[in-house]
């Protein structure tokens, strides 16, 4: 155990986390240079493109330190978005220390601080690392000052490196050995391991990624997942020596994997405790939270023929994403589809993008919704997350919506802008504090519906990226709600229906209409777009028809050319959804979800 170090790299986006990880992997020699690919831990295209890590990853780096001893450095890579903050916290639970990476040009940024606080919450050893010192604009001294004044850390504890050029990487590896404490724990104690991730392998089923806190586990053991309440026989355990190496056992302090014949990742829960069935630990490890979807939306194939394919794709996708849930749904305008639950809007976007990319499907998403609670006049309590199931208005005795407690941290100069945004989002019971000079912590209660809409994007925008954000769902509160319908040439498009706070219904209706106007191409006839509550039209826009669209010449040589163009246009139209006679492009459905500022 003395030779193990478990750590994570945390950083603001683009500060070089993946590049540093790549360098350390190369330095450890676990992967041959010729099979090396940049950003090796970000295995999905979407991760590489967006520069964010979505799934946690772990890798064991063998390292011989300057004193000649052999160490196993377990690097646990964590996702970087509020939708996945629970996964991040579980990953950090598995570490004893972190590298806090700071860009030498940009200095301390919002996520640097937010991540630092999270690491502090887990009592981790923090090693500040100033990256990109090779850049001409690098200002190491200024960053050192910020480490002192803004982070409250000892600036002399900071290391410098250029992950790009590979300088300083040895010092970092050495510091991990010297400064991050080895894990504690008793290999003889009853088994207690925390699951920080689970991945699906088509041949082996679920690969549990875990940190052994106490005890030992080996092949043949019978283990129990405490919160899930299931019992499994361990088939294989091992370490993350690229990509996996089977070992006899995992013991207290180890980070590794367990394969136990578990079919899908949905059969395990992140944060759950694995213990021995025969000799269980006294109580589960702390910090478990059931991961629950908070945002719901329906997914429809653009071509109704693709329904079966979509069903297969969702089933496959689900194998590797436990936090994604779905069930059958249907829409008058869009046909057969699925109602899905997500952790947040980013999660939703990721699912959408992966379905389109990895399964080559064209899909449409309905407007996302939270789960509302209605008490009917006869006393029935109804949870509704789908506008299609909005109860008859006269039968509603009480309507409620979920509220969250949000905590945000940002430099003092943005206080006015953030407060204004929160007020617009119906924030209440705000509480401001000053955890360090110049830095504000705002705790405020807000309706979840307004937060999922575009809050995080706008917070980042008003704080120029310095605002960090985290939230917990607290309770349901009474609210005046309405069902906003969108009509295109008089036909209701149910995928665009939204349950809204009555006070902002008109504005939301208008914004939706305007968004659609921007996205729906002009056609040969006038298109009326209306927002309606009950029978009342509350907003309206029209798309005027085009008047001239004809090729002047069409003789022998033009006929094939023209036909090919039409064939292409027809194909393009297949990617649009026909509502009555109006072709609505997929982008229109997406645009409605976006705020005007993004």
């Amino acid at each position, binding site marked *: 155990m003395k030779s193990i170090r478990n750590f994570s790299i945390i950083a603001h986006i683009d500060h070089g986390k993946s590049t540093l990880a790549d360098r350390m992997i190369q330095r450890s020699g676990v992967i041959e240079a010729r099979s090396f690919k940049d950003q090796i831990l970000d295995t999905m295209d979407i991760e590489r493109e967006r520069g964010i890590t979505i799934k946690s990853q772990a890798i064991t780096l063998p390292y011989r330190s300057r004193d000649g001893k052999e160490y196993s450095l377990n690097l646990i890579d964590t996702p970087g978005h509020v939708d996945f903050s629970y996964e991040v916290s579980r990953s950090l639970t598995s570490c004893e220390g972190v590298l806090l990476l700071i860009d030498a040009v940009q200095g301390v940024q919002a996520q640097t601080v937010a991540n630092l606080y999270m690491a502090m919450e887990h009592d981790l050893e923090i090693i500040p690392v100033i990256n990109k010192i090779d850049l001409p604009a690098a200002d190491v001294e200024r960053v050192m000052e910020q480490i002192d004044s803004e982070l409250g850390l000892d600036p002399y504890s900071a290391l410098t490196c250029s992950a790009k050029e590979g300088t300083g990487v040895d010092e970092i590896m050495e510091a991990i050995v010297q400064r991050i404490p080895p894990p504690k724990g008793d290999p003889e104690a009853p088994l207690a391991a925390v699951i920080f991730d689970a991945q699906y392998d088509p041949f082996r089923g679920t690969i549990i990624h875990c940190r052994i806190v106490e005890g030992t586990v080996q092949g043949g053991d019978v283990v129990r997942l405490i919160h899930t309440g299931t019992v499994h026989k361990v088939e294989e355990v091992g370490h993350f020596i690229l990509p996996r190496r089977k070992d006899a056992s995992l013991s207290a302090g180890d980070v590794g994997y367990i394969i136990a014949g578990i079919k899908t990742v949905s059969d395990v829960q992140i944060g759950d405790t694995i213990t021995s069935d025969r000799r269980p630990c006294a109580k589960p490890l702390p910090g478990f939270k059931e991961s629950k979807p908070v945002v719901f939306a329906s997914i429809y194939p653009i071509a109704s023929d693709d329904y079966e394919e979509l069903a297969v794709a969702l089933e496959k996708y689900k194998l590797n994403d436990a936090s994604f849930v779905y069930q059958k749904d249907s829409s008058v305008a869009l046909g057969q589809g699925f109602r899905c639950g997500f952790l947040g809007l980013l999660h939703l976007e990721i699912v959408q993008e992966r379905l389109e990319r990895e399964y080559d499907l064209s899909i449409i998403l309905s407007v996302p919704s939270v789960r509302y609670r209605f008490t009917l006049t006869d006393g029935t309590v109804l949870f509704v997350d789908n506008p299609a199931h909005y109860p008859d208005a006269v039968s509603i005795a009480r309507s409620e919506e979920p509220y969250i407690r949000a905590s945000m941290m940002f430099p003092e100069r943005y206080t006015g802008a953030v407060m204004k945004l929160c007020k617009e989002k119906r924030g209440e019971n705000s509480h401001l504090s000053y955890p360090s000079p110049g830095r504000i912590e705002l705790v405020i209660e807000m309706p979840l519906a307004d937060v999922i809409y575009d809050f995080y994007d706008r917070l980042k925008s008003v704080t120029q990226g310095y605002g960090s954000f985290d939230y917990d769902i607290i309770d349901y509160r009474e609210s005046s709600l309405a069902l906003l319908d969108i009509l295109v040439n008089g036909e209701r498009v149910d995928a665009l229906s939204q349950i809204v706070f009555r006070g902002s219904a008109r504005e939301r209706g208008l914004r939706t209409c305007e968004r659609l106007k921007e996205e729906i191409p002009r056609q040969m*006839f006038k298109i009326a777009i209306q927002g309606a509550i009950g029978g009342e039209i509350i907003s309206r826009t029209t798309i005027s028809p085009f008047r001239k669209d*004809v090729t002047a010449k*069409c003789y022998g040589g033009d*006929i094939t050319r023209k036909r090919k163009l039409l064939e292409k246009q027809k194909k393009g139209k297949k990617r649009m959804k026909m509502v009555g006679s109006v072709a609505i492009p997929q982008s229109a459905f997406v645009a409605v979800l976006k705020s005007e500022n993004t």
Partner: protein
Amino acid sequence: MMPGLYIHIPFCLTKCAYCDFYSVTQTEKIPPFIESLTREMDLYRGVFDSFDTLYLGGGTPSLLETGQTGAILDALRRTFTFADDTEVTCEANPGDLSRETARALRAAGINRITIGVQSFDDGTLAFLGRRHDAAGAVEAIENARQAGFANVGLDLIYGIPGQDLASWRETLREALSLAPEHLSCYQLTLEPSTPLGLQYRRGEVVLPGEDSLYEFFFQTSETLEGAGYVHYEVSNFARGDEWMSRHNRKYWNHTPYLGLGPAAHSFSGVRRWWNHRSLDRYIAEAGRGIPPIAETEILTGEQLLLEALYLGLRTREGIDLEAFARRHGLDLPDERGALLRILQDEGLVTIREGRLRPTRSGLAVSDSLPLL
């Protein structure tokens, strides 16, 4: 209906800034071209035998010497059979149409002449890179009349950078005063490979906007129909049904046609093929008796349907719904009823006496109509 025959004469003295029809300025290659053309005719002897239209297009067919035109026509008559009342059209540049040339063409058997006037405004003509002026155009038309042409067509262009509606109306007025049997009024189409297309991409010229193009189109139709012309296709007007271009209508109703010469297209009813867009290659291959075909496509039922739909909707006579259903297996009112009703309500099409026809506004958007 009998097939039509098209001959592409790929020569021009100068290239116009907007034109992307295939042509070269190497007039010294005319004799070998005629030689190869004659060989190409032989390839279709017995494949196509009789025609009731012949169309000499280009390029600039009028720049051929009268003997050369005569030689082509003689060879055609030796190879194929032509109906007695065959419509024989020749495209002519006003600059070429001297009294003598006009007479010779008429004498060679040409009975329809279509003159590339383009505009009666000298500034506009210079901008387009034409080698004639407005006075020359008027003279050419008079020459054609004097030579005995009873069927004279004029080609005009609108929507030219810098051209306003007033100047276009002036051109139309001038054209009407010459009482042609046929008028083709084309909206300027920018082809990317032309000098004008390049200028446009570099932002050096600005085209009229959609609303203004609609005005050009609408006023053209209104003015000419007011003067007694039938707006029978998007860009074509005839002073009575008998003056419609019999040859061009074959393109629009899927009648077979044979095209000879480089870049010429042919259609058999299900197969379409086209020749190399290279004079040298054409001369070489056809000269050796090899079909100078660049590509062939066999149209699927679906493709034929789409073509019939879009071609039909470009013409005022529209689509015979019953015949269409019989031929293509699609009952439009049955299967596209809701949309057709909207288009009718919007005044874009009418359905009367079993025909689906575009209205004037419908013709203006007829590229979109077939997407229904």
